[in-house]
């Protein structure tokens, strides 16, 4: 149980590649033995990939035109 708690603390660093070799090896050893932590790792990896693949929400063209015109007007007025 203590090992699971420790695994939870460093699992995100591991996914991000920010965990040093010694801790990474310790975590891998635990994950090989613990089904619950293995599932957490799989889920978090899937979520990270899903987030990365999440599309940019496109700004409507009309809004972009309005934005440029409002900003330019604001800048020209204040200058």
């Amino acid at each position, binding site marked *: 149980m203590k090992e699971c708690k420790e695994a939870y603390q460093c699992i995100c660093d591991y996914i991000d590649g920010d965990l040093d070799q010694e801790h990474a090896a310790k975590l891998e050893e635990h994950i090989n033995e613990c089904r619950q932590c293995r599932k*957490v790792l799989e889920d978090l990896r899937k*979520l990270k990939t899903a*987030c990365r693949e*999440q599309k*940019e929400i496109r700004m409507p063209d009309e*809004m972009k035109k309005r934005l*440029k015109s*409002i*900003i330019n007007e604001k*800048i020209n007025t204040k200058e």
Partner: protein
Amino acid sequence: MHLNSRREQEQFSESDHDLFNRIVDEYSDRLYSIIYRITNNRENVLDILQNTFYKAYKNADRFRGDSSIYTYLVSIAVNEARQYLRKEKPHLFMPIEENLIRKRHYTTADERMIRKDRRALLEDALSKLPEKYREVIILRDIEEFSIKETAEIMNENESTIKTRTRRGRFLLRDLLESKIEGM
């Protein structure tokens, strides 16, 4: 378009009008995405965006080129989005117990989400995260800013960002529960 050359930094900090228009063209879509996701509201994104660009232009002399122009713009946008939420939606700032999220069950209405695609499910879960975790997941995992850049944008230290990233990811996992399997 890369605006990181010394000349372009100088032009930007001199409030060069043409370059500024190019910056608006280049970054408005990406900033729109970030603001929309933080505020969960399409209607006010235009106001927040115009304030963001106007403040960036007005304070351009403060931009020293230590960060990229994009990071500079995102930090202003996140701040503007926060101010909007505090002003327009103060109820969203009621402290939310993280364990309430864990206990939340999908109702019939939520079940309809199952039929939506993965992207919609993720957007929905993201919108239910408390603001500080939503911001960090948007910046770290969707926009792929580094810990250092995210810390700079959110004006927090790196260890706070690491902790929030971890909590945010676990909360997102709790919200999506069994639906992660199909992702």
